């Protein structure tokens, strides 16, 4: 039943009047979206605006309540992603779906009808290599997935959908997981693909990036389109931000000057190995005071994750870690938590939340074992509900109800849920890893404001981020990590991006960390440690 219509030859995708309702939310509200052939079209919007949902509709994962979809001039109604792929649409999800113990080529071939029985892997390696060359993608087809960095894994995902014959590529927040350098490479690759006639839908929260890569953009707000396919020419970051959140966004943070207080966290000669048993931390010394934000800069994989893990009790180490004078090294996560630690983990879905449990059960994750949430042996779910409702309002978590499963929240709201839980425990030390990754400008503003508020309340904050700009605007001091060592610590006022950049790649060393040894507090239970 193909309607006789004047379809535009130049359009790859035309989505008209798409509405999709989830229980309690209108995720897409009569949205129109068009994608021209050979263009890069950015899709912007706050967390929970409905971007991923719209793309899932296009991929045939959800059937819209209303609306029509036209792909290359033909009406379509996809029953499943398989149909969408057959029509030349491919999507790179934010969470990669690769098999770690298989090679690049094997991963690319998964799910295809060809090869049927005998796998002549050499032949397909060659095919993959040729395809990669055509689009200027650097990859070794014989490498196993677990050996690859996140950026390289993403290239495999892209190659996979190209190999499946995609003309239309959907990239859902592809740069959120990438280091700046990798992001720049990805953008180059996407440009190249557009030049060769592919059409790309690019979802991102980073406005600079969007302005750099996209030809046109569509903005969603609370399920509705507030801009439909406007050109990026001459548009400002501020204008975009206000179209997205419906108000002005202040890009300058209000950070008060304040004198830091007592030492809260101290690391003495801390060393640790990573999962592959290679040294990841080498004699790290650090100290962090009340009301102070210490930013950790560094290229991903230089020991930042391990640093966070030893402090939060998730990894073994040598040396001493003192939180408020109490030894927490090699104890347990529980020991760190009861010493006053709050942890905003890098991996929200995998570590920070229990996806199938309700908001309520997620916010009580660290307070379920004491009053008022529980008494003696029981969890008081009524009190827990009240607590959850309070946090939901206070932190403006958008969700139909406190009974909603965590996995149904959009990325930004999930992060707010974690912040709400962690900050409501009145922590002495907050360890935050990439706290704004994948968040929209409004949410970033909210998160940073919350962190600054904790700072003024006297919490000590260890902030690990790859976003140098953010790090510099927020931190009081910045420490740079390179190959597991702190290669320099500087005051925010003296820090400049160039020096930090040089330190990050290991070509400059600055002052070693922390105050001189004699001013350090002595570990209280040092003897106990020795006796063990």
């Amino acid at each position, binding site marked *: *039943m*193909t309607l006789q219509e004047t379809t535009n030859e130049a359009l790859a995708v035309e989505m008209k*009047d798409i*509405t*999709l*309702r*989830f*229980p309690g939310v209108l995720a897409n509200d009569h949205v129109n979206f068009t994608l021209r052939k050979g263009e890069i079209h950015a899709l912007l919007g706050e967390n929970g605006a409905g971007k991923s949902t719209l793309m899932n509709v296009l991929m045939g*994962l*959800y*059937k*819209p*309540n*209303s*609306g*029509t979809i036209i792909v290359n001039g033909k009406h379509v*109604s996809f*029953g*499943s992603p398989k149909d969408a792929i057959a029509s030349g649409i491919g999507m790179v999800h934010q969470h990669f779906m690769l098999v770690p113990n298989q090679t690049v080529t094997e991963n690319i071939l998964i799910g295809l009808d060809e090869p049927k029985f005998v796998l002549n892997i050499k032949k397909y390696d060659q095919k993959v290599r040729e395809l990669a060359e055509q689009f200027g993608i650097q990859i070794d087809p014989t490498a196993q997935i677990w050996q690859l960095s996140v950026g390289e894994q993403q290239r495999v995902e892209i190659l996979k959908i190209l190999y499946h014959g995609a003309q239309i590529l959907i990239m859902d927040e592809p740069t959120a997981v990438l280091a700046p350098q990798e992001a720049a490479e990805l953008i180059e690759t996407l440009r190249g693909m557009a030049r060769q006639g592919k059409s790309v839908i690019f979802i991102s929260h980073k406005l600079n990036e969007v302005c750099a890569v996209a030809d046109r953009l569509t903005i969603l707000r609370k399920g509705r389109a507030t801009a439909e396919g406007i050109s990026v020419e001459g548009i400002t970051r501020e204008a975009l931000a206000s179209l997205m959140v419906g108000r002005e966004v202040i890009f300058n943070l209000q950070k008060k000057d304040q004198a830091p207080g007592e030492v809260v966290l101290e690391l003495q000669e801390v060393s640790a190995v990573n999962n592959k048993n290679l040294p990841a931390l080498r004699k790290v010394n650090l100290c962090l005071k009340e009301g102070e934000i210490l930013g950790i800069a560094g290229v991903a994989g230089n020991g930042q994750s391990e640093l966070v893990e030893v402090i*939060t*009790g*998730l990894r073994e180490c040598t040396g001493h870690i003192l939180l408020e004078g109490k030894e927490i090294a090699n104890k*347990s*996560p*529980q020991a*760190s*938590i*009861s010493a006053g630690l709050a*942890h905003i*983990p890098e991996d929200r879905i*995998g*570590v*920070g*939340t*229990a*996806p*199938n*449990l309700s908001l309520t*059960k997620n916010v*009580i*994750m*660290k307070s*379920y*074992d004491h009053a008022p949430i*529980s008494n003696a*042996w*029981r*969890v008081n*779910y009524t009190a827990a509900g009240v607590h959850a409702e309070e946090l939901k309002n206070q932190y403006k978590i958008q969700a139909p109800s406190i009974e909603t499963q965590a996995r149904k929240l959009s990325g930004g709201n999930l992060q707010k849920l974690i912040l709400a839980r962690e900050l409501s425990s009145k922590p002495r030390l907050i360890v935050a890893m990439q706290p704004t990754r994948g968040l929209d400008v409004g949410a970033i503003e909210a998160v940073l404001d919350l962190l600054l508020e904790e700072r003024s309340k006297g919490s000590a904050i260890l902030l690990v981020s790859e976003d140098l700009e953010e790090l510099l605007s927020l931190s009081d001091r910045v420490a740079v990590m390179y190959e597991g060592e702190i290669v320099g610590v500087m005051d925010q006022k003296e820090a400049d991006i160039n020096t930090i950049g040089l330190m990050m790649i290991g070509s400059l060393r600055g002052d070693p960390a922390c105050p001189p040894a004699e001013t350090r507090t002595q570990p209280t239970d040092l003897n106990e440690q020795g006796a063990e």
Partner: protein
Amino acid sequence: MGLRLDVQKRTEDYPKWLPAATSVGAVLLAFVFSGLILLSVGADPIRIYSFFWTASFGSWGAVSDVIVKATPLLLIGLACAFAFKMKLWNIGAEGQFYMGAFFASMVILLPMVDLEATPKVLVLGLMMLMGMLGGALYGFIPGILRAKYNINEVITTLMLNYIAVFWNNYWIFGKYSDAGFQMTKMFPKIAWLPRLSDFAKQYKGFSGITLHLGVIFGLIAAVIVWLILYKSRWGYKITLIGDNPKAAKYAGLNITRNIVLVFMFSGALAGLAGMAEVSGVVHRLQERISTNYGFSGVIIAWLAKLNPFAVILVSVLFGALIVAGREIQPSGVSFLIQGIILFLVISSDVLLKYTIRVVRTDKNGEIVQAKSAAVEEAE
């Protein structure tokens, strides 16, 4: 023009009644499928099923038999549901049941107490404790292997089942055999759980009714399991670990300890079932006291969607299947039905994630109805 199955991912939450409905549906469909199989071998399913009914619910005696059979199933179903809640696949309730029976019997066989002088309550109480201890210790083994060394519990529990059976046989034949038979001497009355027939003097109707106190253990256990899973701190921890162990670890829970504890608790329930069986039904330790209860328990837990109260209902159904199955030839029919139920129950989970409709298609193979529905929505 034609018909096609239209499978859609659910955008709405599934209705609250759906899980129960899929379970009931699975049971009904299992009877239909087994009926077809019976028909294909020339039997008359209607007659067999009506015979099933009278054999299991036709008289008070039959009902009592069903409940007696349902008692170990109830306890074992609870044991499985409890472990499954934390995604621990304890397939070893069978072995834990045997160990429970063995430990409980040791109270009498050794004997651990002076059987002449100790009051009945104490003897039975000690047997219960020993039964639970036996099951718990036997659950400890796969628990610690899984918790410390990440050894797959499906394999270890399965293997341990065989060991438990042979362990029991060794003692039954080697040491405590009653004149060379594969059973021990009958236990003295003091070791018997009270039965309704014990009260036949006062109430005539009770004569010959073998229903014993074990069923009360089962019901109390169901309430306790429910309280633990849905109301307690421990239950919260179990749910959290079951959903995302990494998050649980990050929240400061001790995963290792909880795996071991859950395994031991689960084992204790199965061990109590073993005690109830020797003390309430066979009154001695003997070979083959279980007719695959451990495996039926797995199916029961699934069919009950891990809900302790639903486990009660489902174990009565399975008790009835076993009682009726004993009376017909070949006796495999009730296992056939059980197997089909498991298969259907597991596959019915699809319905919770997807909606499935039959739709009409036009000549291009495009769905007709979906479009018109979309148009309605727009108007």
